[in-house]
């Protein structure tokens, strides 16, 4: 056991400040444990969102020493020795209270992305056939736990606050999972360019760096989607083909 100092953001939409707490840290503890200990010992009304405490649900997103992290997967023994630990809420979303932000925008964005639309079943019993090789790519995207740390770190949302015209890395991953799903027949490319702002992404890969599921967001999801946008919307022959295809369906 050793005492560690924490600077934790306390406040709401009207403002706030860092409050300082000291608590005992034992072997194997994560930042979320420390926050809970502070809550139990000295700040019972400290607001913190969490759930599974095993890195599987993506609820306890926050910024630890300035880095977007899941608090439940941030080990105290990885923190610099003898220095205070700074814990604050995500910056890309409106603050509700203390460490809890209003992430409802993300849920609204998802509703606007066209849902999965499968091709007719392959077999008479109504089932499909897909090879493991073909689903590997999509399964990587489907590992996403919707912690929104990628949205938090993305400068288009964080600094430029373009929430109205940009869906953010999380939903490019979602769109990629649908677009590259072997069974899907829907076309989302035009919207990705027109209203969902894929052009704003300038591939700085900040999102990939913070993803707790280690999804290679930029290389495997966003860049291939950007290529589809270029191919489908700006290649003159494909554009022509697109016009005909749309008329057919």
């Amino acid at each position, binding site marked *: 056991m050793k005492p560690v100092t924490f600077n934790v953001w306390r406040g709401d939409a009207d403002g706030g400040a860092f409050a300082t707490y000291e608590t005992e840290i034992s072997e194997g*503890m994560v930042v979320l444990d420390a926050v809970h200990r502070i809550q139990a010992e000295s700040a019972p009304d400290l607001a913190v969102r969490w759930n599974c405490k095993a890195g599987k649900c993506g609820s306890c997103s926050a910024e630890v020493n300035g880095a977007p992290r899941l608090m439940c997967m941030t080990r105290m023994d990885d923190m610099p020795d003898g220095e205070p630990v700074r814990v604050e809420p995500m910056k890309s979303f409106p603050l509700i209270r203390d460490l809890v932000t209003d992430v409802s925008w993300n849920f609204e964005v998802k509703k606007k992305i066209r849902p*999965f639309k499968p091709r007719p079943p392959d077999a008479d019993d109504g089932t499909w056939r897909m*090879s493991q090789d073909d689903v590997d790519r999509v399964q990587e995207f489907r590992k996403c736990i919707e912690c929104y740390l990628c949205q938090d770190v993305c400068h288009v949302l964080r600094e430029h606050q373009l929430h109205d015209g940009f869906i953010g890395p999380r939903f490019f991953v979602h769109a990629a999972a649908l677009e590259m799903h072997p069974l899907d027949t829907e076309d989302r490319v035009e919207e990705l360019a027109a209203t969902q702002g894929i052009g704003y992404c300038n591939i700085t890969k900040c999102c990939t760096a913070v993803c707790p599921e280690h999804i290679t967001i930029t290389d495997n999801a966003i860049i291939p989607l950007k290529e589809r946008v270029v191919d489908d919307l700006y290649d003159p022959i494909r554009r022509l083909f697109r016009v005909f295809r749309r008329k057919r369906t």
Partner: protein
Amino acid sequence: MPEYRTYPYDVLVVGAGGAGLRAAIEASSSGARVGLVCKSLLGKAHTVMAEGGVAASLGTVNADDNWEVHFADTMRGGQYLSSWRMAELHAREAPDRVRELEAWGAVFDRTGDGRILQRNFGGHRYPRLAHVGDRTGLEMIRTLQDHGVHQGIDVHMECTVVSILKDDGRVAGAFGFDRQRGRFMLFEARAIVLATGGIGRAYRVTSNSWEYTGDGHALAYEAGADLMDMEFVQFHPTGMVWPPSVAGILVTEGVRGEGGVLRNSEGRRFMFDDIPEAYRNQTADNEPEGWEYTQGSRTARRPPELLTRDHVARCIVREIKEGRGSPHGGVFLDIAWIKEKLPNAAEHIRRKLPSMYHQFKELAGIDITTTPMEVGPTTHYVMGGVWVDPESQMTTVPGLFAAGECATGLHGANRLGGNSLSDLLVFGKRAGEFAVRFAGENGSASIDPGDVEAVAAHSLAPFDARDGDDAHGAGDAENAGDAENAGDAENPYRIQSDLQSTMQERVGIVRTETDMLQALDDIEALKRRAHRVRVDGNREYNSGWHTALDLDNLLVVSEAVARAAVARKESRGGHFREDYPDKDAALGQLNIVVRKGPDGAMQVERRPIAEMPDRLKQVIEEQR
């Protein structure tokens, strides 16, 4: 009058895990107005934690599998206390429910010929669990969530329901509040589906998150519904034991399904030492045969590590108690050893068990491809719950339905791994379907403003309570002389923690009459302390307040578990009594039911199990 917003629905679903989402999808598909309330953000419910897979006799890996084998496996696993009709419906309908998920975009792992791959799991005769690595629950909840949001379901995230409101005996609505701002909400509903999950937070070591405080169980109980089989709590054999802050977090049975073995400190595979009679024919008695089974051999019998969870948990407890445990009070679970058998073992493990690999790497600093894990039992699931009609999932309260973990009937004395995810889908759908039908056949009911006022006042009591004040009405007057009652204001976290210790130590894996009677006394004392709970701050995102309100539910379910466990004087499935270590055939013919009596005290009833029809008896006979 308290201030609140009113939301009118045909069907209100409480809980947005697999069962709640599936119920809401079914109900809204008919055009009904459906509200869905959840304590967390959408998609964070406990279903997301399910790892191993969803059980359904698709027969893609072994064509001999069919609903009859699945039915017989489920009944055997439940020690014949399950509702045979629910077990039948579940086994028959699970394959369609899984295929439906694929049609909604789920991407399961594939067989060589491109169909859904199925894996072995404890108590299932054939490879039966459709899965996605070890994150099947995430795949399921995301698929349901993404499908549901395009169907016009009204989702209320981070809201808690504190009471079911009735009109002349039937459901009229529910009252609750939003956790973010603390504002009250009144839901008018012709039918309500409870899908709130389990009660794991009544115990200290649990794989369950803070949400699992038995809300649905307690809401139904307070509304007058029956709870059944509450003595059967599943202690999953493999939870993490170190470091302390992660103790209880689940280590999937999939590790054993992929060839992982349990060893004690002497390196012995102790599971070979005690194979129950009922499973002897199906269990390997040597190590090579067990390995062959995990690698898909159709002739080999399964290794004893894949016996039912209740049995494996007790064997682990025995090893620890007798001094053959691991350094941190568990036993060893070794998957790294398969490198003796497979050339690319490390990569294989990372591919088949990616989240286990990360969980141990990041939380314990252990590489499971080279080092054995330390594991021990953790409170995982409650087989018991709200009694429901097998076909419709309606409780004894007209218009009140329940599905998933908070309902009971399918799992009997012990649940097989993989059967919970299929349970959610099969009975979530049925609950949604029958709730909509009920709403259509019954007009709206009226809500008594007096009821609303009383519930609102009760909810705010923790803010008002002062030392010596009576926050919960006249009920305390008779206890005025009680020493505990005259004490200081209580901290809700401390009461919860004391309750967890009581349940862990006295109503845990190994039970005795003396311990459990003591637990019931403790629970009474904790109830009195709970009346004096006091919380600071305001109503916005106030965990102290939320914990104070959860306490009422935890106390109800804890008492129900303890009373039912005292009443069952035998050992069966998840319920093991040191003072009655054997099965009692007579008790195998009945379920224990608890309900709230007219005087407010908990009543216990022994209810005979309905006779199984001959056609199902024959199925069981054929599968012996």
